[in-house]
């Protein structure tokens, strides 16, 4: 039975060490930060439609099933709300609502949103579009999130890299959709 105690002790030790490592990593400077960018072969106005139109948002942000704009068909202006309804297959297919409130809205260059899901996270997401001339746009998106649940706070060093990968995938999908639409329009 002695070796069972050794294994049990070793397991508890490994879990404790993992928690300490996660706690330390959770205090790094860029904790909760994810960003992605791309140069898109379309004008800023063309890219902007994909950030603003609820139907288009569903196409490039994966797992979004519905976009609600309580302040009208196209949410616009500081203070307006935009709710992304997402089907979370990692949570038994539950529908999760991510509420965004516009804190900056300047078409077609700047959009900031304060985002939150009660009991899960809160943070900000910023979109910047820079005109590169000749029908090209530099697109940047950055998110800074803080998790409200203690366990999610502990696991932040694992959640943020996964969020980064998801953001990279979404931005590359946006680029191909916008460029596909832009070339069809020419």
């Amino acid at each position, binding site marked *: 039975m002695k*070796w069972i105690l050794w*294994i049990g002790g070793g397991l508890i030790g490994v879990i404790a060490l993992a928690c300490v490592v996660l706690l330390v990593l959770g205090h790094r400077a860029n904790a909760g930060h994810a960003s992605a960018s791309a140069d898109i072969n379309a004008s800023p106005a063309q890219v902007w439609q994909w950030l603003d139109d609820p139907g288009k948002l569903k196409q490039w*942000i*994966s*797992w*979004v099933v519905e976009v609600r704009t309580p302040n009208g068909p196209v949410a616009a202006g500081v203070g307006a709300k935009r709710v*992304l309804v*997402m*089907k*979370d*297959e*990692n*949570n038994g297919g539950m529908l*999760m609502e*991510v509420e965004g409130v516009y804190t900056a809205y300047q078409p077609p260059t700047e959009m900031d949103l304060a*985002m939150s*899901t009660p009991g*899960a*996270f809160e*943070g900000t997401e910023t979109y910047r579009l820079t005109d590169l001339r000749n029908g090209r746009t530099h697109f940047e998106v950055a*998110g800074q*999130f803080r*998790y409200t*649940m203690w*366990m*999610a706070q502990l*696991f932040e060093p*694992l*959640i943020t*890299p*996964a*969020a980064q*990968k*998801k*953001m990279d995938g*979404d931005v590359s999908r946006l680029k191909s959709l916008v460029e596909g639409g832009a070339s069809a329009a020419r």
Partner: protein
Amino acid sequence: MKPPLLAQALLMAVAGPCEAEYVAGDLEEEFAIVREARGRAAARRWYAWQVARSAGALLQLRVRSGELTHVVLIASLGVAVPLLLLDWLWQFVYSQIPLKDGLHRAPEFLVFNALCVCACAAVLGAWAAWKWPASKWPGSKSRALALAFAAAIAVLVALWAGAASAPAAYVVTLALAVPASALLTFALRKSR
């Protein structure tokens, strides 16, 4: 010239120690006859086919005797439960992503799963060597093989039951590495 090793291992695993000895003896005699008559490759195929077609019936006999019940239970607790717990952990991590993500897991998470489950299988192998010493259990090798096969099946069941999508390379790696880890530590502890 010996029969195929994997088929022999499967026979040892599915048949109880007594049946395995008799069945293996009979098969080896016939294997020699078939080899003389039809050649080496045909004899190996014949042997593998005989083991495959008898495996179900032999396993049924062993399950009925109640001998395999705790082997299956231990394999399930030892490898399937940790794998499912890890799957739930990654599910939690992915459910916390602000803009939700899918069921594909990052490669580093899969590598971590594989290392943990192989470590659990290694513990199982060490436990089998301690629990069934050859001096007291003549069929200890057969039991260890049964445990390794049960662990491989338990891993496959856990992967099927888990929510995450499992790439084929990951499934094959686990299905091979888990029984190998269990057998390796069993053999190492036995050799001491």
